[in-house]
């Protein structure tokens, strides 16, 4: 299975950097997320994860290092986390590490809300 690599940019829209490794299961998303078509962008990520879960059946370490995302993105992130929770419930090995600026109170609240919403153990890592 191929890795998923997307180079981020900060132009008219903000594209996050995506680096999902099919061998190690380390899946990192970083930068900022404000996209022209949020659903279309995150569809490829969800589809990659679904294929990995289906074919590789390996562990997944989902690493989030987003300094900003808009509310459309926040829905797509919820879809990803729900998918990971389902995988975990079916016996998959899942770790979620969420890095955030320790001064960004709003971001920490967002992470807490995802923990409540999904039931996943998300590790909050301040920097």
């Amino acid at each position, binding site marked *: 299975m191929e890795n998923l690599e997307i180079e981020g940019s900060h*132009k*008219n*829209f903000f594209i996050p950097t995506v680096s999902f490794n099919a061998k190690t299961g380390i899946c990192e998303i970083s930068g900022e997320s*404000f996209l*022209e078509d949020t659903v279309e962008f995150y569809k490829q990520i969800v589809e990659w994860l679904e294929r990995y879960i289906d074919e590789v059946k390996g562990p997944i370490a989902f690493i989030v290092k987003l300094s*900003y995302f*808009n*509310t*459309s993105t*926040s*829905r797509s992130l*919820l879809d990803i986390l729900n998918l990971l929770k389902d995988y975990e419930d079916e016996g998959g090995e899942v770790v979620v590490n969420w890095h955030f600026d320790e*001064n*960004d109170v*709003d971001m920490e*609240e967002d992470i807490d*809300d995802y923990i*409540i*919403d999904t039931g996943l153990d998300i590790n909050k890592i301040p920097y």
Partner: protein
Amino acid sequence: MNTAENAYQMYIDLIDSTIISYNGPFDAQVLSVIAENIEYSLSNNPRVSKKLFKIFIELAQNISYYSAERQKNDEGNLYGVGILMLREFKDHYSFSTGNLIEKKHILPVIQKCETINILDRQKLRQYKRKLRNMPSGVPGGGNIGLVQVALTADYPLEYSVVPVDDENSFYILNVRVNKN
């Protein structure tokens, strides 16, 4: 002061306080230029700059998607038209937006604003989670942009709706962010 002097004082106050003002379609290019301006104008206060940026994106997207007045940009795509102002006062910044809204959408929008304003922060976070689990794309429905605006501003939303004609009204929203 006579009327002319009043008008002049109003003009001076407006010029002095205004950081950004825009009237037109809210396409990607415009969003990008204004977002850059916000970051640049407030680079000495990164925390507030980030808050204003977050609020701006959601307000601008609401106009872009939901304004009843639509205009083609240079590439021929239709975008919602509206006005936006960012002004600076002694202890706060203030975002004001205005756009036309179809009469049938007034009630859901007002209900949304009222709901947001009566909820405390914890309840507002619950409301956001509830909306986020609902389908999006319905005006006044699953859209969580306005809830995020209220959470980020940490202030109630100030809004008013002014009748324009048989079909449309003008919807004005004001959002404050403290400097400290």
